[in-house]
């Protein structure tokens, strides 16, 4: 008997359903999550061409309310949250005093004085702790809502049609008393509204992590299974399939989106990650990390750090996180994420490389794949961009 048993995995409200669908499960940040239901390649292509349904209930929801909610978030995060209008969303980051990235976040402004902060599962507790600590002196409340929401995502070009068939405005069957009518057509990218889907009250956000059009639905955990079944049934004729985290990772990689723990970490500032644009020095008041980030911005301008680039294989061997990028026999960088790309049909990777080798088309770049130097082409990110 081992005295150090691994901590028990947490299960989402859809756990039994995933098992009934024969999902291969995986431990992701302490949660037992579906990795894939069948072929991850098929799931990936379904999202690119039709639609996919994801359980993302491991994501960490934190609600911030009160007269100074916006002021608190402006102080605690690097973005200018005060300029986010009600019903809109913003991609942003939370940094430590030394400028290191604690997490990347999406902040939804639900009402005048109410914000929903969505953190990565692996960082949710750290974000909650930081927000709580930073809230001292502000007339605002930080609430742990991780158990308050299940999160389902419908992603892919058919998602709008699938959800419209389930929303009161579009299915004449039920207009509930007083329930807001969800105008999904009018819901812009990075916007959120409160409505009902398949009779289930939901925060409906037009956001995602796949590079496709799509929606994220925050619902009560008790409603998750009903909603999942309704979306599955309504989406079946359009080719919607359940999708696991494996294809979510290849989808976001093709779309050039960073993943915390890979492209982002405490050791990097947003400027190191090529995402300095999320830091707003011109906003009102001080914010945590401001001084260190100013220095990081100056340093990045004067002496460019390693640059995040895309790599596309000429061969078929797949680069993995941590593999060295080499040129002329020297290590010039490191792979942060790599996978076979279902859309391109070749292995792809994101890597931090020395600025001298970062220009698209740079010759002579290779990845050390278990001792073999496999040639790779340097390309601009993203690898894939949907036609709008």
């Amino acid at each position, binding site marked *: 008997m081992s005295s150090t048993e691994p901590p028990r995995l947490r299960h989402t409200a859809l756990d039994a359903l995933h098992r009934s669908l024969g999902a*291969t499960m995986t431990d992701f940040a302490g949660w037992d999550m579906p*990795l*894939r239901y069948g*072929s*991850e*390649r098929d799931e990936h292509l379904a999202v690119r061409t039709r639609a996919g349904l994801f359980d993302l209930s491991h994501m960490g929801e934190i609600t911030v309310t009160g007269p100074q909610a916006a002021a608190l978030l402006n102080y605690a995060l690097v973005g200018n949250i005060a300029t986010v209008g009600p019903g809109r969303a913003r991609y942003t980051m939370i940094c430590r005093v030394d400028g290191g990235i604690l997490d990347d976040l999406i902040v939804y402004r639900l009402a005048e004085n109410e914000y929903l902060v969505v953190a990565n599962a692996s960082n949710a507790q750290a974000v909650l702790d930081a927000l709580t600590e930073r809230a001292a002196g502000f007339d605002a409340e930080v609430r742990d809502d991780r158990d308050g929401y299940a999160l389902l995502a419908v992603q892919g070009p058919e998602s709008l049609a699938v959800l419209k068939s389930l929303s009161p405005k579009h299915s004449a069957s039920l207009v509930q008393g007083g329930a807001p009518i969800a105008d999904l057509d009018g819901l812009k990218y990075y916007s959120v509204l409160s409505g009902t889907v398949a009779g289930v009250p939901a925060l409906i956000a037009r956001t995602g992590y796949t590079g496709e059009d799509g929606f994220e639905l925050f619902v009560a955990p008790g409603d998750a299974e009903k909603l999942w079944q309704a979306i599955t049934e309504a989406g079946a004729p359009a080719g919607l399939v359940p999708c696991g985290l*494996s294809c979510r990772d*290849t989808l976001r990689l093709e779309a050039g989106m960073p993943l915390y723990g890979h492209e982002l970490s405490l050791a990097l500032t947003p400027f190191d990650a090529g995402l300095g644009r999320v830091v707003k020095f011109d906003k009102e008041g001080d914010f945590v990390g401001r001084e260190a980030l100013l220095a990081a911005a100056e340093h990045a301008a004067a002496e460019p750090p390693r640059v995040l680039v895309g790599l596309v294989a000429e061969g*078929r*061997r*797949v680069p*993995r996180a941590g593999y060295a990028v080499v040129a002329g026999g020297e290590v010039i960088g490191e792979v942060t994420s790599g*996978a*076979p790309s279902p859309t391109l049909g070749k*292995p792809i990777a994101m890597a931090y490389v020395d600025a001298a080798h970062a220009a698209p088309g740079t010759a002579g770049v290779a990845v050390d794949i*278990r001792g073999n130097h496999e040639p790779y082409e340097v390309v601009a990110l993203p690898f894939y961009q949907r036609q709008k």
Partner: protein
Amino acid sequence: MSNPQQLRYSKEHEWVSPVEDGVATIGITEFAANALGDVVYAELPAVGDTVAAGETCGELESTKSVSDLYSPVSGEVTETNQNVVDDPSLVNSAPFEGGWLFKVRLEGEPADLLSADEYAAHTAG
């Protein structure tokens, strides 16, 4: 998932066909293929290579990981499945048939292989 009765199995999840003219066909099991996920790259031993039971002789790469390929028998490689090199998804779609990996002219009788039922018990744990 059913493991064909006429095959024998290694604990590393390879299967070995009945021997014909001293040659056995090797592949990985459906259990292993499912655990790997979509196979995207197969590096097989070369024809003429000598392989040894229990030792690595190639690798299979899937979306999430790369895994060593172990030979379940000892002998000389007489043929490799070019179809799998060209289309590694055959390992997932037909692990016991079109997704076979290589053939070996055996040196002696293979040892320590499991029957289909024994292998099923091994993977049930």
